């Protein structure tokens, strides 16, 4: 059953429309990640769900009821903010229990819930500390605990890991994922980090300029990107985009020179873009068609990223970590046809 349903959601500030007809159904217990560059509308969508912004048109349903006109407190949601928003003048216990202030549950019951959430998050020993006496990760746990204690229908996370250092971010990422597996709540998570999205999500919603570009599992958005934006946004380094023209019999004349046989029928004469991920573009491939000189190397240990200057700009490829080509060396790159994505040059949409 869908726990959260967005129908034709539109948000405008004065006459500027920033969200354009967003529709999405989030299943009960699903972990959905909204990802996109700054200003794409992901946080606005989350704030609309939370009730912190007013919907211009469209509806939001949580657990089967339309919540458009309900106050945030009545929507059965809990939110974790980017800067934690835990109150510095309250202890961890009070912070976690803050969400229960308006609850009519008996004191003993509230106390029990605080204790059990603290235990789940490994914060029992810190219950009487103030936030200033906690590390960044512990503060984030308190913020999560404050959301958990209310046992809401939907958890909303607004870039909760972006204030943490790289190591802690990885650790918290795992912890949130484990927590989701254990608790099984519906989570809507906003981030601009595609690695976070890929590693945590059941489904990813990729947004740009207030539009949903694609909704899919991490594997789907990675292997079958809907358009060039998704293709370049997901995966690091970004996918190489090589313009070409479709030829009869499944061949593509590349702007970098040479013809590549994709073995599939494409509308003859149409301008297309071939998308090849750096990890799929190799030296010494049987069907190597891209030629160019290496102008930069980025050793990563087990492999080396090479930046190859071609007739139509740079492409990035992966080479062996032990014996990478030298800078200035001319290399021939190729990719297996099944790893080559084809997009319409005019619309940017995938051609399948």
């Amino acid at each position: 059953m869908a726990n959260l349903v967005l129908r034709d959601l539109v948000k405008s500030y004065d006459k500027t429309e920033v969200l354009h007809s967003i529709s999405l159904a989030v299943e009960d217990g699903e972990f959905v990640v909204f990802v996109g560059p700054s200003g794409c509308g992901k946080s606005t969508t989350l704030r609309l769900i939370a009730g912190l912004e007013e919907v211009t048109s469209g509806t939001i349903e949580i657990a089967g009821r339309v919540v458009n006109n309900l106050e945030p407190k009545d929507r059965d949601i809990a939110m974790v903010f980017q800067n934690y928003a835990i109150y510095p003048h309250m202890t961890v216990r009070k912070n976690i229990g803050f969400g229960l202030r308006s609850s009519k549950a008996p004191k003993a019951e509230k106390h029990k819930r605080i204790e059990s959430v603290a235990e789940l998050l490994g914060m029992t020993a810190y219950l009487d500390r103030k936030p200033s006496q906690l590390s960044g990760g512990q503060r984030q746990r308190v913020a999560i605990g404050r959301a958990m204690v209310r046992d809401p229908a939907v958890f909303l996370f607004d870039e909760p890991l972006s204030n943490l250092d790289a190591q802690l971010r990885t650790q918290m990422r795992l912890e949130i994922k484990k927590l989701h597996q254990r608790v099984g709540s519906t989570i809507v998570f906003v981030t601009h980090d595609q690695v976070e999205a890929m590693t945590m999500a059941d489904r990813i919603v990729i947004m740009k300029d207030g539009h949903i570009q694609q909704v899919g599992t991490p594997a789907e958005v990675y292997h079958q990107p809907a358009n060039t934006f998704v293709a370049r946004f997901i995966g690091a380094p970004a996918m190489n985009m090589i313009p070409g023209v479709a030829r009869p019999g499944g061949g593509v004349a590349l702007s970098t020179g040479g013809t590549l046989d994709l073995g599939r029928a494409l509308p003859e004469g149409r301008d297309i873009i071939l998308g090849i991920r750096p990890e799929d573009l190799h030296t010494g491939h049987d069907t190597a068609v891209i030629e160019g000189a290496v102008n930069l190397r980025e050793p990563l240990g087990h492999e080396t990223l090479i930046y190859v200057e071609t007739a139509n700009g740079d492409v990035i490829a992966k080479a062996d970590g032990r014996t990478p080509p030298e800078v200035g060396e001319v290399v021939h790159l190729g990719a297996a046809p099944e790893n080559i994505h084809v997009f319409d040059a005019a619309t940017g949409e995938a051609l399948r």
Partner: protein
Amino acid sequence: MAVTDEIAIKPSSEALLRDGPGKPPRNMGQILRFLLLFAGGVLMVMPIAFMISTSLKWPHEVYNLNFIPEEPTLENYTYVLEDGRFYWWFLNSIVIAVITTISSVLFDSLVGYTLCKFRFPGRYIVFIAILSTLMIPTEMLVIPWYLMSQQFGWLDTYWGIMFPGLMTAFGTFLMKQFFETVPDDFIEAARIDGLNELQIWWTVAMPLVRPALAALAIFVFLGNWTAFIWPLIVTNSVEMYTLPVGLSSFGDEADVAWELIMTGAAISTIPTLIVFLIFQRFIIRGVVMAGLKG
């Protein structure tokens, strides 16, 4: 070799190690700065020292400018403290200063919070209107205040003395600036957690601006404690006088009893000193932060 030997010592630290912390500064600029500060300190302390000195003098010695009284006496203190009116004035001042302080802290922060955290039509105009009242000198407001008090029957009452100070434009501005430092996430988190707007203001926002509240409380308390012109105009009966007004009434038409005025003033500084000493660190922090934010 000891580990510490290998650590490079900064030149400034080296000088400190060589000269020790107690040595006087050699730099001329530093000496000048100390002299200037010392002169400033003397200028600030002189009136207070003179007030205490005068309060220990007999009437015939008051107009001598000697700092140490020839025949020091506590007679003035005995006289003032035995005068029943002094206690009335003291009580009046306490009541007025405390009520206006509480009221001002509450209302200034409430209005400041509203202007800072809510978006509503005319918000900017309201703020500018409040701010513009800061530019009108008290002397200009005294006549309208008096006419108003007369119309409402507030002359010679606590309410009459207090009403102009129950809320201040300065306090509203100060609090608005401080509430800018409270991230909106705190407010929104509380909203999601089920608090109403008044609860959010009281439970979440107010504790986060405690230094500003303390600073404002001290400013308002001191301002009302030392207020003279308005209480002088609005009060008629001796029992309703505040301390500054009452003290100024010592003496008669032919002569002013400066030794008694100074004695009363010296006693009246005690509560302000206590308030200031307790909240000193807040006032300094508050002023510094207000400066940064303003």
